[in-house]
């Protein structure tokens, strides 16, 4: 019997799991996928927004600004890459300048600190690679970039370190309201729980409908992105948005926290919740819109394209509330700025639970930090020598593009919520995330995964459960030959 079952191990579900781990609660985090962070969280802009973009007094506005405040400490505790590099909204004409003023006022109402309108000259000084047609910008110093899936993985790991159970490969196919709470069918398991927290992303409406009337409908919108080679990572210093206008919303151009460069997203929908693919038109649109802001960008240095779905709803605000069925909390419609808002949402959900659990005790053994991640290449030469002295596997570089060592990969496999797939390794430690996209290292990463997990290499998948990489051995039959 669990106190709380969290459905969905994206950044929201994992943030809630970690928040709950601070209390004396028996919690299980359930996901249909074979890894945490495998839905919307793994494919978004990875921006920690300042919060000027949300309509005042919405859940979005409140959660965004509060979430932003919480990021620095959270990422420090969890050893997750986060850089507060600030953002620009750039204007190309007088109408855009008016928009900037509106955004600035809105941001100030929301409580966003340090907003400032910059002149053409100031913008040029800070960002010489921006289009010369930019005539001004709204600067938000509190915006930042983060490793979005690294964060969710770290949150899950820290939650598990502090006693939360994680149940993967377990799609929730039914929920029954019982006298004591809920009976949840999750994959092969049947869970019994007092509370259910629904963080199921683009599937949140379906989870809600197991026990409630269909009070909301998730509209999955697809966003496509291009990710560029690290040699382009310093093209901009700041996150650059285009001022939204009657002609539509532009794309965001930004350096990523790992040192790459990202342009995106497009926005199209509503789609089916599994309709995750890039399109020729989408990729064309990225290029055209991107070129408006960074006309001299080397677009040919793209290393991969990806698409993510956002869980939109018609009324365009987060749903963070108890449903008509008591003790069933919906945390739904968490589209942008959901990543930023995640820690604030977790805090709010915890407050809701505390109201219901008056005798709730703190978890006295809670440790807020996770075991630090050793990033071999970022270490000094002396440290490198010391690391290899301690564990010789730091001396074996597996990923040649990002210089990731065997010891780092092994570490990522054996942590709580550890890597079990090739992409799982990539998301945790970047092996295979470089310019060759795993061409050289995938065979060796598979070998390490198989060895460390004591499974046949044929069973190692790329990402999803059925995304098998190898179809069998060569040479089907064998006769011993002496």
């Amino acid at each position, binding site marked *: 019997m669990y106190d709380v079952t969290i459905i969905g191990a994206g950044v929201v579900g994992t943030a809630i799991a970690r928040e709950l781990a601070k209390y004396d609660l028996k919690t299980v985090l359930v996901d249909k996928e074979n890894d945490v962070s495998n839905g919307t969280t793994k494919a978004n802009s990875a921006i920690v927004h300042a919060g000027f973009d949300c309509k005042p007094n919405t859940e979005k506005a409140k959660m965004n600004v509060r979430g932003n405040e919480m990021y620095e400490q959270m990422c420090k505790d969890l050893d997750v890459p986060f850089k507060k590099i600030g953002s620009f909204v750039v204007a190309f004409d007088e109408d855009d300048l008016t928009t900037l003023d509106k955004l600035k006022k809105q941001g100030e109402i929301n409580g966003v600190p340090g907003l400032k309108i910059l002149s053409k000259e100031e913008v040029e000084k800070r960002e010489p690679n921006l289009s010369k047609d930019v005539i001004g910008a709204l600067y938000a110093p509190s915006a930042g970039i983060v490793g979005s899936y690294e964060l969710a993985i770290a949150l899950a790991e820290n939650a598990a370190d502090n006693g939360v159970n994680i149940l993967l490969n377990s799609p929730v196919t039914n929920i029954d309201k019982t006298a004591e709470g809920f009976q949840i069918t999750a994959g092969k398991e049947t869970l019994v729980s007092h509370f259910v927290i629904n963080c199921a992303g683009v599937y949140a409406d379906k989870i809600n409908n197991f026990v409630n009337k269909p009070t909301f409908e998730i509209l999955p919108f697809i966003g496509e992105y291009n990710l560029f080679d690290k040699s382009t990572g310093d093209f901009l210093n700041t996150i650059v948005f285009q001022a939204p206008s009657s002609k539509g919303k532009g794309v965001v151009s930004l350096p990523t926290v790992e040192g790459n460069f990202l342009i995106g997203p497009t926005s199209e929908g509503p789609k089916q919740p599994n309709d995750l693919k890039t399109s020729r038109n989408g990729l064309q649109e990225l290029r055209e819109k991107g070129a408006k802001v960074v006309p001299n960008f080397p677009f040919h240095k793209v290393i991969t394209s990806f698409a993510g779905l956002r869980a939109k709803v018609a009324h365009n605000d987060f749903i963070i509330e108890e449903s008509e069925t008591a003790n069933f909390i919906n945390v739904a419609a968490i589209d942008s700025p959901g990543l930023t808002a995640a820690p604030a949402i977790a805090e709010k959900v915890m407050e809701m639970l505390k109201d219901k659990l008056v005798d709730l005790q703190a978890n006295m053994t809670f440790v807020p930090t996770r075991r630090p991640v050793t990033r071999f290449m970022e270490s000094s030469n002396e440290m490198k020598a010391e690391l290899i002295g301690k564990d010789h596997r730091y001396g074996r570089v597996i990923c040649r593009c990002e210089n990731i060592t065997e010891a780092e990969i092994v570490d990522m496999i054996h942590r709580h919520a550890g890597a079990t797939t090739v992409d799982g390794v990539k998301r945790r430690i970047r092996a295979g995330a470089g310019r060759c996209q795993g061409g050289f290292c995938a065979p060796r990463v598979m070998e390490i995964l198989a060895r460390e997990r004591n499974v046949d290499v044929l069973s190692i998948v790329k990402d999803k459960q059925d995304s098998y990489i190898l179809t069998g051995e060569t*040479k*089907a*039959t064998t*006769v011993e030959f*002496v």
Partner: protein
Amino acid sequence: MSVTELICITCPIGCHLEVEKVINDDNETVSYIVRGNTCKRGEKYGIEEMTAPTRMVTSTVKVDGAHLSRIPVKTSKPIPKESIFECMKVINDVKIHAPVTCGDVIIENFLGLDINIIASRSMKKRTKVTETVNV
């Protein structure tokens, strides 16, 4: 009279050949005329390709006790083209043990063709320590 167009595969130049079949009054082939070749080997290829085409086969066989589980092999000479898949069957059924030296005969006189399957690289026996080798 009939002319067949071929691309010579003897070397990477890939000459475009025309091979003309010369037949007698009884409709029997008496000879071939090869045009477009830039060397003697091209002529030989053209005629062989019309009469008895052959191909080199390169593949792998299973190997035990080495750092890899497959070792590359090749036919010692080109084999009849129609025997390629039969050749693969024979190759697929074999497992050898390290150490192997490049050129070792893996299968002798297979399919009765007077052609051997030979190892196309050497492979040492795997030692316990497969760490960095400093020489």
